[in-house]
């Protein structure tokens, strides 16, 4: 068995590697964008010179004028078409890359051990795979565009030199002015943006407070008062918002003044040269155009900024790729095995400390085994390692003599089933949610499983019965649990792990489900994590965990002789509360599940 596996890959390096691979995936498109952008830049650079020369020829009534005019038209049309091609190619490249990143990231997420993947909050994951992936997907196209974007400003400056060095000098003299004015703006703007965002965050914080206390607010009938409280910073937000527009407005105004002034400056020099007869009217036109193109150097900065943003978005999208995958073997299980489960020297480490230590037990095939212990004793980790939802850091787990990591995924999941305290259901309808799994059982089998789990009754009472859309089925915690049980029963294999899966059922229903499980579901080994005394007392064998170690294994009546064993049931408080005194116990309701 492999030793400790930790998540150590550097997300930044992973992101860059992934971006590189993504660029290779869209290499053809990126190259096409680069070629088209370069061609378009070349056309844009040639255009003013050709146009100027054409104008000169036209003004002079030269016979070559029509040919040059045609060249003009060709250049402009080519530029037009190239621009459109770049727009389309960019869109396609972004779509391809985004989809590729999403698929890879999602795939790894699904193939990782669930407890590793669980460090991503669901909402956070959604953002990573939608908005972040979209932004990261623009990187290849943006990189190509950024390379090409250097050409026009540089070329325009060279063109100015070629037409008349004095115009280029005039342009360069005006540039520092531009730089200074833009700088002055940046400081102001970030300041007011920060204040604006702070006011916004205050409103959001207050709203979250009020929503968190929705129960109190509803009971006290104070929603209107809460709204006033939440919205109190709104005038401040509006004030800062107006200031932002003012600052932004003056920045736009400044840059709006600068560009025309710069062009006028260059034009004035060009005008003097025209009057001196050094250049023609057409050259003057070209000069004004080149000055504008040269001033477009800001576009390069914009693209570089987009690249930086895309890279940090890629880091977020690619982070699931740093999860170690749960690799499966390609072996099978002996046919008709009884489901004997062996844990040999199993140790599981979480966050640096062992939560299961040297666990050595054999659960006979076909038996019903209860795992008991105080909260934090390692019961759920035991359940997870028993069906390979996680790998042990040391030791091995064998089912009918075969190590679990040697079994191929399909066989493993067919033969090992799980039911949880808070199952997550998937599927459009209730029937689909119950059939969800390694294979889809037929309708009658699903119904039989639902009957065994005590779910048939309330499902029949739903508006559309088994075809009720999940989103429109009002389910209590207990009903949700029973659907989770039915899903597991419908796919039951040689090992069935019930991890606290009946905690929200009342005792009578629980007993009925247990009886049906023994009678109507495919026989096999049952591993039951339970808090209830009654569950332990009905098991063939009890594994008593204490602080991550096996304290004892044996039949319940034997263990019951030990006062320490009895104390497990006398004081099994939820994880967030201390044990109460006076022998009072919290029985069936484990943890803060359900309402």
């Amino acid at each position, binding site marked *: 068995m492999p030793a400790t596996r930790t998540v150590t890959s550097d997300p930044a390096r992973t992101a860059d590697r992934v971006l590189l691979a993504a660029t290779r995936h869209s290499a053809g498109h990126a190259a096409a964008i680069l070629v088209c952008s370069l061609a378009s830049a070349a056309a844009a650079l040639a255009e003013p010179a050709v146009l100027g020369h054409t104008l000169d020829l*036209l003004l002079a009534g030269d016979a070559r004028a029509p040919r040059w005019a045609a060249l003009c038209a060709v250049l402009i049309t080519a530029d037009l078409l190239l621009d459109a091609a770049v727009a389309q190619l960019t869109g396609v490249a972004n779509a391809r890359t985004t989809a590729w990143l999403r698929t890879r990231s999602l795939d790894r997420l699904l193939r990782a051990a669930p407890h590793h993947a669980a460090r991503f909050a*669901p909402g956070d994951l959604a953002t990573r795979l939608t908005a972040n992936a979209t932004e990261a997907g623009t990187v290849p196209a943006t990189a190509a565009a950024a390379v090409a974007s250097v050409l026009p400003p540089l070329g325009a400056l060279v063109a100015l030199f070629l037409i008349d060095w004095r115009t280029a000098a005039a342009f360069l003299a005006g540039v520092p002015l531009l730089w200074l004015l833009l700088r002055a703006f940046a400081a102001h703007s970030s300041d007011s943006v920060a204040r604006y965002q702070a006011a916004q965050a205050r409103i959001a914080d207050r709203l979250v407070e009020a929503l968190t206390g929705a129960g109190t607010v509803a009971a*006290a*009938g104070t929603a209107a008062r809460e709204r006033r409280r939440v919205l109190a910073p709104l005038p401040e937000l509006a004030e800062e918002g107006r200031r932002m527009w003012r600052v932004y407005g003056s920045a736009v105004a400044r840059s709006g003044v600068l560009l025309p002034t710069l062009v006028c400056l260059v034009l004035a020099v060009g005008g003097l040269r025209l009057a001196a007869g050094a250049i023609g009217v057409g050259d003057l036109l070209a000069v004004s155009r080149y000055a504008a193109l040269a001033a477009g150097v800001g576009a390069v900065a914009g693209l570089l900024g987009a690249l930086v943003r895309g890279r940090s978005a890629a880091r977020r999208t690619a982070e699931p790729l740093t999860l170690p995958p749960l690799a499966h073997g390609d072996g099978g299980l002996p046919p008709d095995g009884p489901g004997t489960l062996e844990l040999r020297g199993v140790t599981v480490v979480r966050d640096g400390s062992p939560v299961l230590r040297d666990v050595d037990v054999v659960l006979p095939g076909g038996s019903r085994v209860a795992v008991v212990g105080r909260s934090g004793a390692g019961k759920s980790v035991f359940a997870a390692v028993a069906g390979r939802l996680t790998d042990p850091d040391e030791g091995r787990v064998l089912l009918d003599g075969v190590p679990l990591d040697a079994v191929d995924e399909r066989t493993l999941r067919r033969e090992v089933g799980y039911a949880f305290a808070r199952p997550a259901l998937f599927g459009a309808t209730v029937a689909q949610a119950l059939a969800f799994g390694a294979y889809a059982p037929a309708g009658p089998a699903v119904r039989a499983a639902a009957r065994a789990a005590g779910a048939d009754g309330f499902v029949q009472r739903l508006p559309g019965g088994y075809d009720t859309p999940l989103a429109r089925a009002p389910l209590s915690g207990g009903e949700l649990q029973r659907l989770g049980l039915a899903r597991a029963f419908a796919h039951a294999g040689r090992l069935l792990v019930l991890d606290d899966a009946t905690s929200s059922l009342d005792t009578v229903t629980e007993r009925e489900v247990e009886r049906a499980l023994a009678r109507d579901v495919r026989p096999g080994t049952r591993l039951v994590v339970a808090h209830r005394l009654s569950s332990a007392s009905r098991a063939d064998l009890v594994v008593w965990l204490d602080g991550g170690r096996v304290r004892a294994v044996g039949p319940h009546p034997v263990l019951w002789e030990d006062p320490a064993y009895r104390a497990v049931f006398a004081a099994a408080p939820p994880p967030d509360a201390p044990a109460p005194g006076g022998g009072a116990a919290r029985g069936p309701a484990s943890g803060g599940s359900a309402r």
Partner: protein
Amino acid sequence: MSDRRTTHRVLPQARRFLRGRKRDLLVLAGWSLLESAHTFLTGYGVARALDDGFLAGRIGTGLLWLAVAALSAPLGGVAVRGVFGGLAGLVEPLRDGLVRRAVSQALASAVSSPARPDAAAADSAAVSRLVHQTEMARDSFAGLVLTTRSFLFTAFGALLGMATLAPALLLVVLPPLVLGLGLFLATLAPMATVQRAFLDTDEALSGRVGEVGAGLRDVVACGAVRTVAEDVGRLVTAEERLARRLARWAGVRTLALGAAGRLPVVALVAATPWLLDGGVTAGALLGALTYLVQSLLPALHALMSALGAAGTRLLVVLDRFGTSTPPLPGDDPVTPPAAPEDPGAAPPPTPRRPGPGAAPGRAAVELRGLTFSYGPRARPVVDALDLVVEPGEHLAVVGPSGIGKSTLLALLAGLLTPVGGTALVDGAPARPAGRPGPDPRRALLPQRAHVFSGTVRENLCYLRPDATPAEVEETVEALRLGPLVRRLGGPDAAVDPRGLSQGERQHLALGRAHLSHAPLLLLDEATCHLDPETEERAERTLAARPGTLIVVAHRLSSAVRADRVLVLDGTRAACAAHEALLGTSALYRDLVGASPA
């Protein structure tokens, strides 16, 4: 088409919004005209500088006209500044309204179902709406107003300039410009449809990934990795297909706007011989080219980047904010707390100070065949429950979780409407007719204590804003809140809720209940994060307070302290004193952990 319906929903609101902002619109238009003047001068100045100056050999005049063109730039700057002032007058009120609506909607939905199972997801959605979507609307709206306006007024200035220089120029320039713009406008509707579908798919994908993320363990355990990957993959592919369609439209749009901006130049060059014959000067030609290349083309570029994406996004976001702000409980402060519905029931008293028998001979709580279910055909959570609680009594409710204890308390507090039977509090229906608001008859403390950013005193006086400092002092004393209040900096110090543990929050909330004058106090696991000792003291203090106390017991020790215990087990219920129940209820025995049968 869904797009058209959206437009129909949003448009009337937009009209109303703009009608209320005539002044800001006028300001915007006024400054924009100044921008037109600026555009006019740039081309005109260049033309005259050439014709009257450099080409005529009058260098001074030429420089003077260029100076006029250059000086028009500061004029444009002033105009832009003014435009942004007007813009703020339009955009900020829009954002204010959206923020108000987002807050009201979030509160209304949270309050209508406080026991939501998906509370965390709903809360993050509410915050996203408050922060991201309002900002998206703000930016899109501003960009739209800015660029559309800029294009219109720039085009006006440029066309006016050409008309002034030589009307014949317009004949040449206008046809390709109009053609390109027409083509562009024709792409708007189909593109918006694709964009809309794209945004919908993106949202569906986001929702699906969130679901999968929340159920990764189940996906792996069920062996459904491949199924789920294929399922999400279908959405990814669908979105990619839509993105590719959008890319095609982007190409068409670029072509259209390029045609509008560039083809006039080609036309001008082609028509130059004809124009020169007609007496158009070289300066006028250069001026026209300046207008086209320097003013119109940038304005068209800006228009293209803003209109296509931002327009649809704005429409979608605005549509999501709905058409109205929902009213909130407590909006109308004069709503009578409990209007007597049937003439038989006496109006509920509004006691200043609770007495053990707030109204002699009347039960504090009376349930007759009370039935409740969460859906019309869902199995009842509370089924035909009969119960009478006498004034001053202390009742504990126990049972497996999810069995309906919180639901029962919500029914008693009038937060839910019974499906059948009646729930009377102090002789009147627990849920008064009319809009819900503060009800002085009862106070309910849920498990999640609501502590907000305010002073300690404000937090304590949440249910009794008129409590005197002496009363607050008394409560702090009685519940031993002194150390906590001192740690927070005294009664008038500001509380940062994040700095409080769950237990401390619950402790503060208990102070609230103690200060309240409500004759019926309902605690729904409101002490679960307290240590047993503090819990016991708080419960005893609250039970000693004049009035009735009903507690959903988190620990069985709570039940032992109560006068009577109500055991809920599915649809059955039993109510008796602790010892009696040990004899009669198997479930209760199981709950308290008595030895197995």
